[in-house]
């Protein structure tokens, strides 16, 4: 039981990274960035590719993350900048276009098979009581928590954070008050892309496989986590991610893998009906889509 809870939290922590990445984008820029599952995948696949080319794993991971920063900037250039004044559903289409683009570029580069990711850490598992904690998984859980706490600290306490929150409130007024939107908005895209990509790298290290389509399943769960937590709310995204991870692992444990989707999406549906604005969202607030 407790073991399953731990496994669920580990899986959930990956969802948390993707969900926080999405929630940053929608909370600050009011932009549901569907290319994020693609950036997640790029993080994992590019790391694999670099390791295969003979680079040491830290170097491989850093190169992949830098590449994702560039990709995130390209997405910003072709989606967010064009959306001003149009219906808010629209950039959703072009960011989905980028998801398809990234996936198929990687398909050309590495093929559609699941690629085995090398095990870079020797097996170091911790046993606490009867619980088995995988080393890499533990590191990724801690890393996710640290990253998310850091982001929320930056948003709350620093000068940058204040500027970002002003943009979230009203981009036009923020611009009038002298905030350099052209500088801050790409930074938000990079931060959100990096979170997703780190999620992808951690996923690769934990589950030891990558493929061009690895972002989809995780991305959908991440989006669900973000929405069920209440959009734009970082703590909501964390709660949502962990909730989905734990629900998924428990339903596999108790009911078998045939019923995972029914249970996970059933729980989401019921939660949404009970709390139409998400767990931590305000109901009366006008929706942001």
């Amino acid at each position, binding site marked *: 039981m407790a073991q399953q809870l731990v496994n669920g939290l580990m899986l959930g922590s990956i969802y948390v990274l993707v969900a926080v990445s999405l929630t940053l984008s929608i909370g600050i820029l009011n932009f549901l960035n569907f290319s994020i599952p693609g950036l997640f995948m790029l993080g994992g696949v590019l790391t694999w590719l670099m390791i295969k080319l003979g680079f040491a794993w830290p170097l491989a991971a850093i190169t992949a993350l830098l590449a994702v920063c560039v990709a995130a900037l390209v997405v910003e250039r072709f989606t967010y900048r064009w959306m001003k004044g149009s219906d808010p559903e629209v*950039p959703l289409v072009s960011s989905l276009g980028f998801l398809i683009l990234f996936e198929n570029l990687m398909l050309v580069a590495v093929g559609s098979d699941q690629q085995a990711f090398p095990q870079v850490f020797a097996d170091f598992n911790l046993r606490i009581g009867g619980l088995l904690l995988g080393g890499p998984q533990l590191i990724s859980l801690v890393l996710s928590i640290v990253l998310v706490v850091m982001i929320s600290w930056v948003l709350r306490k620093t000068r940058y954070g204040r500027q970002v929150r002003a943009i979230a409130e009203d981009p036009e007024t923020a611009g009038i008050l002298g905030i350099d939107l052209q500088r801050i908005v790409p930074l938000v895209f990079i931060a959100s892309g990096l979170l997703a990509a780190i999620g992808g790298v951690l996923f690769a290290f934990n589950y030891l496989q990558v493929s061009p389509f690895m972002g989809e399943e995780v991305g959908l769960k991440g989006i669900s986590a973000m929405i069920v937590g209440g959009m734009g709310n970082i703590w909501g995204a964390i709660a949502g991610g962990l909730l989905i991870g734990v629900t998924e692992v428990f339903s596999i444990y108790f009911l078998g893998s045939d019923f995972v989707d029914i249970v996970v999406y059933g729980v989401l549906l019921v939660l*949404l009906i009970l709390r139409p604005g998400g767990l931590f969202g305000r109901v009366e607030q006008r929706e942001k889509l």
Partner: protein
Amino acid sequence: MSGYLEGVLVLLSINVILAYAAALPLSAGQLNLGIAGFMAIGAYASAFLTNEIALSMWLAIPAGAAAAGVVALAVGLPILRTHGIYLALATFSLGEIIKAVFLNLDVVGGASGYAVFDYAGPMAVWLTAIGVVVFMLILSQTRFFLYLTAIKNDATVADLFGLNTRNLQLAALTLGAVIAGIGGGVYAHHFSFVEAQYFNAHLNIFIVLFVLLGGVQTVYGPLFGALFFTAVPELLRFSDEWRFVLFAALIIIAMAWRSEGVITAKLLRAPWRGKTPEGARP
């Protein structure tokens, strides 16, 4: 007509039906990401009726569509408590649940799929699609459609002006589900086989993309979107493995170039009728 062209036209017809199934709720402001689920209900219900009680296809497909409508009606009230992106996730969850239920339902073959014994030829599929288009063209001229647009633009004001927004929204959701059910029934009877995995998240997202790329302002937008998503990948076949890379690039360019959807009301307005007033929303 070559078999290839015939096949592409069948695909186009089914995509057109699905595009309108998503466009109708969207014209009331509902982003329905569960269209594939309703399509699955239409497909499985009609296939079950022709297979098990030897009902004629022409009765079974409407019956399947009605079944999809009944499900939409039943879940509509609780689901419509949510709005915007939350509604999108609620419908998406519903679609995933429906898919997973059929995947585990052994009466209709479970994961191994379900063969359908009655066959609908290409002509039947085309005619159904044309029927749906004509229906939507007529519907778009009615007061009902105007009400939906009013709700989309501002549900609160529409409510204040005396529209029964709850019932209208429910009607839009249900009607969309019925159209999706028709699409599902036709799909099942043309391809003679249904499997639950087909009605997945990919399909759901692409159906909505048809509509958003084509544009939601006019009734012709979804038609264009379905055409784009069917024809362009076929035209790009020469590029082999780069096919979907190019396709994705075209989507991005199309949306950057026409960010309100390719077909806008302004585009269709005859030049002699003058400019659209500033700020007017069709």
